[in-house]
């Protein structure tokens, strides 16, 4: 295949990379004055890349290293649009904090490029390079407020533990390469077709551990609460949404395309990780008084649900995982947008007590948080209910009904901590007035709340067939 057609297939990434390079020059020469311009440009580049991913040609390029199929298309559109939302949420917030820098949109762009590489990875090398490009940008973003010691701590912790997980992942990848004789998923699948040997399984377990770190599944979740608590709120909104979807799609792609012959083996590992994630996410969330930490445990719980769908190892499971991640991504971004909007005396409101009686002070945002909490809790008719419905249906259809029962049980303590937020907001004595809420963050929060109900119903009608199409690309029965 010649270079031109290869570049056409990889057009979204080419647009992102070239756009980043142009905007770096604009920012470097324009200085701090050009921050707004670079932000707008980055948003435009992301939307354009999403359009290119949506209507671009499909196929494989660069000797199988880059795969553009329905799954990549589906997740790329979601990832790029969510990254654009992250810029819309983060850039004005940084300006208000007087720490606006033109590097913020650039790092989001580079992270989005990395996520694009991840969801399109066709071999172990692009898998690793995509993860690394995305994570390095996220480490820097987590430490973005370098004068805040908690932000620096979050960045450093994320970096050190991320480096450890990359080490595990690379060790697994090198073992798989050694035993299968190729880095390409298709060739690995051919090599392990007749059943995987001990060496490949050993490598696969390390690969799964490394990726479980990236999706913050327990028992590899230790970094999550600290990073969520320390990093700036709008940046956490970014970290918790798009990268998780990218990592889950990569996870599914590596397992489904690289190891269809060892489905039984990886299923066991994923089931165990899903069970531990659900248990940790549900129980450890109970003792959290800080809302950002609480949402970190909630994300661990939700990743457990997504992994449960994936563990079913069927096309329906992959479809459920994709739908679940997209709906979860919108919910959680909205939640963090509400947290970004709320401030008291110039300090972010993060502790549960800060939200006491919020409904009498900020009724609009309190309603939005209520809708989003109920959605995360999985109450019908909110979007969280539909996403959980897909996941549980897929798990039961895949024969994993004990896991599904465990998931239902785990959602009971989780329900308690979401309801506690509502109780504090609606029935406690007000803790005082809040600062003026910025329009951009509130708009994103309210938009997500509106999406959780009623916009989710028409959206699901469109999402369902698209996700089915995307799941077919994983080539499972």
């Amino acid at each position, binding site marked *: 295949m010649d270079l031109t057609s290869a570049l056409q297939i990889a057009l979204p990434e080419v647009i992102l990379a070239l756009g980043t390079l142009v905007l770096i020059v604009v920012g470097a020469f324009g200085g701090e004055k050009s921050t707004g311009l670079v932000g707008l440009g980055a948003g435009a580049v992301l939307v354009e890349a999403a359009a290119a991913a949506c209507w671009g040609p499909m196929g494989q390029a660069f000797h199988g290293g880059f795969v553009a199929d329905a799954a990549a298309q589906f997740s790329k559109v979601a990832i790029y649009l969510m990254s654009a939302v992250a810029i819309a949420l983060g850039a004005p917030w940084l300006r208000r904090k007087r720490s606006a820098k033109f590097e913020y949109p650039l790092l989001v762009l580079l992270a989005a490029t990395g996520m694009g590489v991840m969801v399109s990875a066709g071999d172990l090398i692009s898998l690793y*390079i995509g993860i690394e*490009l995305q994570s390095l940008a996220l480490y820097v973003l987590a430490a973005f407020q*370098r004068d805040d010691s908690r932000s620096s701590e979050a960045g450093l912790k994320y970096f050190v533990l991320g480096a450890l997980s990359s080490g595990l992942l690379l060790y697994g990848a090198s073992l798989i390469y050694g035993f299968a004789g190729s880095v390409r998923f298709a060739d690995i699948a051919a090599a392990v077709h007749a059943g995987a040997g*001990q060496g490949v399984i050993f490598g696969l377990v390390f690969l799964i551990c490394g990726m479980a770190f990236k999706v913050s599944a327990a028992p590899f979740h230790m970094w999550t609460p600290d990073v969520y608590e320390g990093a700036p709120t709008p940046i956490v909104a970014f970290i918790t949404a798009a990268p998780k979807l990218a990592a889950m799609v990569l996870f599914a792609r590596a397992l489904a395309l690289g190891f269809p012959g060892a489905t039984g083996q990886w299923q066991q590992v994923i089931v165990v990780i899903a069970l531990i994630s659900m248990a940790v996410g549900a129980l450890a969330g109970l003792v959290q008084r800080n809302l950002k930490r609480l949402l970190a445990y909630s994300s661990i719980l939700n990743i457990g649900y997504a992994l449960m769908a994936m563990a079913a190892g069927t096309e329906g499971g992959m479809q459920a995982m994709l739908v679940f991640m997209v709906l979860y991504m919108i919910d959680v971004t909205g939640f963090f947008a509400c947290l970004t909007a709320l401030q008291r005396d110039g300090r972010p409101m993060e502790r549960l007590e800060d939200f006491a009686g919020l409904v009498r002070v900020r009724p609009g945002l309190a309603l939005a948080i209520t809708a989003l909490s109920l959605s995360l809790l999985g109450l019908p008719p909110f979007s969280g209910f539909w996403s959980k419905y897909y996941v549980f249906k897929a798990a039961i259809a895949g024969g994993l009904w004990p896991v599904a029962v465990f998931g239902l049980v785990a959602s009971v303590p989780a329900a308690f901590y979401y309801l506690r937020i509502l109780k504090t907001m609606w029935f406690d004595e007000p803790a005082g007035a809040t600062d003026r809420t910025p329009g951009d963050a509130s708009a994103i929060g309210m938009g997500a709340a509106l999406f959780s109900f009623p916009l989710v119903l028409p959206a699901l009608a469109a999402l369902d067939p698209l996700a089915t199409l995307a799941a077919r690309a994983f080539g499972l029965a």
Partner: protein
Amino acid sequence: MGLQAIAFYVLAVVTVASAFGVTTARNPVHSVLFLILTFFTAAGLFVLLGAEFLAMLLVVVYVGAVAVLFLFVVMMLDVDFASLRAGFARYLPIGGAVAVFLLIEMILVSGAVAERGAAAHVKPLSGENISNTEAIGRVLYTDYLYDFQIAGLVLLVAMIGAIVLTLKHRPGIKRQTVADQTGRSVRGGLQVVQVKVGEGIAE
């Protein structure tokens, strides 16, 4: 065969011993020096395998750049290594258990390798008589162009990150401006003052 075997055993023993030294040396500078020795002997092992390009890469990149950078960091940062080491005895049981577990797993895997041959079904490069430097060069910028470019973006992120996290524009800092320095003339820099005897000069 004989000479190669001797070389292998010498290099392997030195690698393992110096790797052990990295973790046990009390002085962090010695640790880094042991690390350099480990890299160097590992490079020797690569040469024995016939991978001379990787060997040179290991020496140039790891010994030449990374390890020396470590050495700078260790010597310039005032890290209290005694306190870092304080938990060593406390964490030894669990760390040791993990290490033993890993060792057993590695032995199992090596057993599997010895039994079936790791990549027995993998064909070596075609019979053309090319060095492995040339073989890598042929594919790095062609077949692996994509990975190479994305790796470039990773380095770009590292650069932007370093600038974002460390560059501070402080006002009132004296900077060297070469143009101003060379453009200085007698008129601006020198003042001839008639000083009265016994009074001196007041600013």
